[in-house]
């Protein structure tokens, strides 16, 4: 790892005054430090925000609020999350390892960079790092995206945002000119020619908190994740489902997908199919098929189509199942 300067301000304003393109915020370090060891990230300074940003889980009138520093382990163990946002608790529990979850913060997790092996290799100046070519597109892309959202085909690696998008979370940022709040799907966006990153957070901004509106009464949520190992692997495909069954029909269904695109995505066509339908294997199968609408698998990841179909079918069965 290269040398860097280190600051640990006590208040957020001081941290905000320090951060910029070369001075990056540092919390759990589970992503940034590996990137620095790989010489892919080379910040001149780390600004430790662990003393200056909020942490903890709070029930408020408009939902559940998570301080940016809340660890995945805290969320996984939180009774209120288990009670109201089970898919989020499951997403956290299925992420990484207990050691990593003890360190990793929710704010940092939203901004985790892709685990694409071309992006992480110092031998390639891939498109996402400012180069001209996405090597994964014609290379070893078995773990990569099946929805083509940008010149980059890396899949977003984080589990919790799949569940957060499911519940319609929004994120509050602090910047030099104050606070702004935006929906999660406005924060996480496929990279563009000008913005070679998966988030719209400015280099002078910090995530302060994440708010999740309370789901409708009686709603059930499920998160399922397929891996190449029982634990400690990024999702090949993951699915989150939120719905409730009322008078024999599915109400307010939401479906989000992970491991399939640059960012977490919603399966809106499938949601429409489910809305108002009576639960049945046929409906699940149709919704699962529709979740694949627009998918364009690469040379080595066509298996993600049946995987997504199977995983979503199972998630729907579980969500509908009454205790």
């Amino acid at each position, binding site marked *: 790892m290269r*040398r860097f300067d280190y600051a640990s301000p006590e208040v957020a304003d001081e941290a905000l005054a320090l951060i910029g393109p070369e001075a990056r915020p540092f919390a759990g370090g589970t992503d940034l430090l590996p990137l620095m060891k790989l010489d892919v990230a080379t910040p001149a300074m780390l600004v430790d925000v662990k003393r200056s940003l909020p942490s903890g889980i709070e029930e408020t009138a408009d939902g559940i609020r998570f301080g940016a520093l809340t660890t995945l382990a805290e969320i996984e163990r939180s009774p209120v999350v288990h009670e109201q946002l089970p898919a989020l608790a499951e997403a956290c529990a299925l992420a990484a390892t207990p050691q990593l979850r003890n360190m990793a913060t929710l704010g940092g997790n939203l901004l985790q960079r892709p685990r694409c092996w071309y992006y992480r290799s110092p*031998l390639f100046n891939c498109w996402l790092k400012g180069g001209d070519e996405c090597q994964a597109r014609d290379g070893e892309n*078995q773990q990569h995206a099946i929805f083509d959202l940008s010149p980059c085909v890396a899949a977003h690696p984080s589990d919790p945002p799949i569940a957060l998008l499911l519940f319609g979370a929004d994120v509050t940022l602090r910047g030099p000119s104050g606070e702004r709040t935006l929906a999660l799907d406005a924060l996480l966006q496929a990279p563009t020619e000008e913005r070679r990153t998966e988030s719209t957070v400015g280099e002078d901004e910090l995530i302060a908190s994440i708010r999740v509106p309370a789901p409708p009464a009686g709603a059930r949520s499920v998160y399922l994740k*397929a891996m190449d190992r029982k*634990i400690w692997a990024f999702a090949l495909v993951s699915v989150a489902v939120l719905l409730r069954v009322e008078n024999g029909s599915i109400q307010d269904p939401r479906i989000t997908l992970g491991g399939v695109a640059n960012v977490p995505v919603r399966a809106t066509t499938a949601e429409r199919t489910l809305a108002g339908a009576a639960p049945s294997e046929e409906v699940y199968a149709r919704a699962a098929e529709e979740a694949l609408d627009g998918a364009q698998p690469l040379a*080595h990841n066509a298996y993600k189509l049946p995987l997504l179909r*199977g995983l979503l079918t199972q998630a729907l069965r579980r969500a509908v199942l009454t205790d």
Partner: protein
Amino acid sequence: MTSLHIDVLRSGEGKEGEYKVTEHEPLAPWTQDTTLTVVGKPLPRVEGADKVTGRARFAYDVHLPAMLFAKVLRSPHPHARIKKVDSTRAEQLFGVRGVLHSGTAPEIDWFKDSKLFDATARYVGDEVAAVAADSEEIAEDALRLIEVEYELLPFITDFRRARDPSAPRLREKGNVATEDGEPKVYERGDVEQGFAEADVTVEEEFTTSSALHNCLEPHGCVAQWEGDQLTLWDSTQSIFTVREEVAKKLELPEHKVRVIKQYMGGGFGSKQIAWKHTVIAALLAKRSGRPVQLMLDREAENLAAGNRNPTRQRVKLGAKRDGTLTAMSVTIEQSVGAYMVGGEGSNTPGLYQRLYKCPNLRTEQWPLYANTGPAVAFRAPGYVEAAWGLEQAMDMLARKLDLDPLDLRLKNYAAADQKRDKPFSEPESLRRCYETAAQRFGWRAYKRQPGGDTRKRGIGIAAHEWGGSGYPPGYAWIKLNADGSADVVTGTQDIGTGTRTSLTQVAAEELGFPIERVRLHLGDTAQGPYAPVSSGSATQPTMGPAVRAAAHDARQQLLRAAAVYLEVDPIKLRVEDGKIFVEGESGHATTVEEVTQRIAPHMIQGHGARGPNPEDVSVRTFGAQCVEVEVDTETGELALLRLVASHDCGRIVNPTLVDSQVIGGITQAIGFALSEERIVDHARGVVLNANLEEYKVPTVHDVPPIEHARVDVADPSANPTGSKGIGEPPLIPTAPAIANAIYDAVGVRITENPITRQRLLEALAAQKPGGDR
């Protein structure tokens, strides 16, 4: 006092022209009926407390005053001529104490046909330069300041294309890594005739991927010079190999090089040769006049310190309707990587040649160069790969013949070594393993349980044979101290398997001492007599007999001394638990301590050597494993439900240690079967997952309950302890047993490992709807 009687005999085996020094009078072997009190006990590891408290010092823990840290610059290109290396800026960096590269290092021959710092880089990760500095960070900074001018050369990383006429060549002669460019062929009987006689044949192509050893402790060493005396703390499976090689490379007499290895964080075969890091550290230490530590990082470990050779095997089996094999043939291509490194060979044809009785057999083996890191022996080298092909092909044959896969194996049972044309020393050994595993697993009575609508269950079996006989030479000394305690000194090493403990048990047993009165010393070339590399599952069967012989020698001397004091015939004396008894008398007559104190300060010294292996039989090890799996046909989720393993390693010296080898070996095999694979971008020549994030070793959640159904039958003809090796065998049958169980469950045959979600789902998708299951 007796001295060691030795003969110099012409060896029938091993390297041509090799002589072996053997004991004159072999000890009477411990047979199945011999009553033993220490051997066979599940004693805790003697070094256990040192390990769990952190007292045990590994190479990484050796920190000497003023020690420097070294790092290696590695080629970013798969194949390139190094035109110029300019290290001026690196040398000027504050804290840099030495830089080595092709322009500044002595020209030292390395591998078969290369140099320590060669003018050609042959894989991404090949050594180009090295730096020693005050800290690891400074050394890393310095590496970035070294400017290298490369001329890029055409490369080939996919060995399956290495024989194409158009393939780029790694060597002038081509990419076939044999002396004459021809494959190694073994043939017996008439294969064509055998296939003509067959009622049924099966033919399939299997491929195995390159697994990476991923020792928890990477390769590395600390080198220190005191005058012209070099001491190396090296993480190695063979202190004497390292001493010999380093002495040769640095043109030093062997007594000026001392190699120490007390504790080991895993080797699995990859640490059985002398690697470049040791000589680089020694050269940098010499130049800087300071001790140097050079530990590989995980990426270097996974690129440059060995891998299991990937293979492609085209297998054909022919059989009569009743299952009798009439012919077998296999063509094996296997990649050696960019260099031939030596050490234990990857004998992929070996399993095909011995496991089943078959009069007509042909094996053809093509070792091939490719621009990837050098392959090196990996726990049961060749056999793990071969079992993937052979044991699945046998399963296919059983299904085609509508026979129970176990019955097909029993039908073709081999009681003799068909390659050496000798009976096995324990001809019923494998049958015992089949019976024990099948019975404990409930193979015959298996009733398929439905796991649910989308979950299907199935069972699979696979078997193996392997070496593990041990071999001479190997020596041990014993010193009896005045207080009646014993120091056992050997030049072997404990590579984490528990050798310290199991050899201590052998010594205590033969001496008749309580185990806490015996201390075993190993892992230091300056202290103990020669012992061979710890590989080939050979350490216990090689060193156990040597230690027993030394203990026997010491005990005989002790009893002769006691006999003088007791005024009896020494033949009437025996030692038990540190006490000396006279035949026919009740109660003990004296104690070991009384005798050793009476003769002190004179000292009893015992000497022992490993005797020759029997000439008339072939000493091999065997095993069988059964596994039950569940496959979710919707998602390709695979669950291993249970696994039963039965392996015959002769007499079990310590059941806990053997269980550890079986469970650890199967765990590693589960990685090979399901998740471990070096991923290479062949178009770009780059390994993409030389790390522990994307190279997936199994976690505890990936390992099912493993039952070790012990066999524990002494093989007295193997050696005087009746024990054989167990380090490698447990890996061999696991992966094909799993693949066979998957076929049993869902009817898809996975011919390429590991069985990832991708491969399983692709196979399920290709399966015809409404097929045969």
